[in-house]
């Protein structure tokens, strides 16, 4: 395995591009970054963005459960309050809206943990550090 340590974002990106241009399969390149460099994704290939589906399904589930909760509760004990219809959609939509945001945010967070494989027991057990500099590791096949 070859390992490179880069001091700056520019040096890191240049090194990455050079590796890819030299024919290294991006699949074999592992990087660790001290801060987010979105350009690294373009060099190594972005891969599918599945996090948005967690946010989307969370949001839909929140909206559905907000409406279901309010409509079910008024139908299960139908009391007219203030002359309003039993199923009063405008205020119920408000609950649906709030739960859309709540479940959407929680869904996205759960999706993040799943996709980013966190919490990482391996990292915690091995005392693997979040690096101060950019680290590139290339799996060459023989030792990997």
């Amino acid at each position, binding site marked *: 395995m070859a390992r490179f340590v880069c001091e700056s974002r520019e040096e890191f990106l240049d090194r990455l591009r050079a590796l890819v241009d030299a024919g290294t399969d991006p699949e074999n390149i592992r990087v660790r*970054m001290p801060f987010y460099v979105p350009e690294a994704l373009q060099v190594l290939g972005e891969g599918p963005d599945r996090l948005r589906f967690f946010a989307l399904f969370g949001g839909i589930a929140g909206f559905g459960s907000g409406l279901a909760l*309010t409509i079910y509760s008024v139908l299960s004990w139908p009391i007219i309050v203030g002359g309003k219809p039993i199923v009063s959609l405008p205020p*119920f939509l408000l609950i649906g809206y709030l739960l859309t945001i709540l479940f959407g945010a929680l869904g996205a967070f759960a999706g993040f943990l799943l996709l*980013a494989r*966190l919490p990482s027991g391996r990292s*915690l057990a091995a*005392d693997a550090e*979040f*690096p101060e500099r950019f680290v590139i590791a290339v799996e060459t096949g023989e030792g990997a």
Partner: protein
Amino acid sequence: MRSEEQDKLSAFQRLENDVLAAMRRPGPRYLAAVGLCALLVLMLFALWGGLVWRGMGLSGKNNPVGWAMLITNFVFWVGIAHSGTLISAVLFLFRARFRTSFNRSAEAMTIFALMVAGLFPLIHLGRVWVFYYLLPYPSERLIWPNFRSPLVWDVFAVTTYMIVSLVFFYVGMIPDLAIARRRLPGLRGKIYGLLSLGWEGTLRQWRHYGRLYLFLAAFATPLVASVHSIVSWDFAVSIVPGWHTTIFAPYFVAGAIFSGTAMVLILTIPMRRLLRLEPYITVDHFEAIAKILLFTSLIITYTYIVEHGLAFYGDNPFEHDQYLYRMLGDYRLLFAIMIVCNSLLPLTLFVRRLRRSLTWLFVLGILVNVGMWLERFVIIVTSLAHDYDPYAWGTYNFSLVEFGITVGSFGLFFLLFLLFARLLPVLAVTEIKEHS
């Protein structure tokens, strides 16, 4: 070129050192501040205990003014929370880079303000042990909350806001907690390691992190507008003169951002000095915050004019009377202070020298918060004190118990913030690195 890279790297190391140094050395002034705030918190809970034990007669609430200082505090503290989300989420979406100097403190402020705000409906309830009546749970009596009531919307809005803000705050901090893990020795390092979930900064982690942060900002942004709108509907949905007006939602939201921005100044100006963060929170950054304060002050002044204009342009004698009472009645002094603090003094920020004077910004932050607290008090109390029926009119004067609880709530807020400043990274280190 090489030396430029070295300079940048050493600047990054200095940044980490400075932020982590703030987490290491509690000086005597800090400990004294913590002690004072802890005493105020003790007073808050002792007085609340008194209210529970002896009853709500210890408060100054009466008939007709049944919502008073405690509800004023609730609205005030929820409002304070808003600016945190504006700075962290809305400015993130607008790519305003100066936010990185403030966003961590502002997010912490949001959470602590919501924690304090959440106490007040419970205190106001009196019989706090029945608070769960507001929650939707399948009871054996088949009773559900009335979802047509703004008070129930409030429960959902504030709870959602609290949870989403907490997730946003925590997610933003994960890489910085990993830095603390690397830099701090012993048990503290291990605890930060656990809190960072074993973050290593791999491409996979950063990629999903970047997306998540964007999604959370997008989810939190509508909350800036909706939560205080819902709080305003606690009033506007009623038919009380002075409350029943369509301008309340934007009026409350602007007020919330205005008071929250002032609180950011109150918190960060001393924090910057005490933790020696001058290189990272610059006067230019404060000037940007001052511009937000000035802008929201102008919106607030506009809404004052509109709400009074609506009352006098409309043909409702009760509205006329209510707004005259607000300006000239029993609470006219508070109304005048409110106008001076919220509409007139912030105009000084048109002068560049004052926008860049941290002393003036700190003083103005305090005055604006005094003004905004009084605004909520004036709105709530004058409308109830002087509604339709002259035989039902009355005035309110707060009791010492309510006053003590209010002071105690500030103690709780500042205590939580002081603990945050010592235990967690006060600056978004990786974001500052990313934008430098």
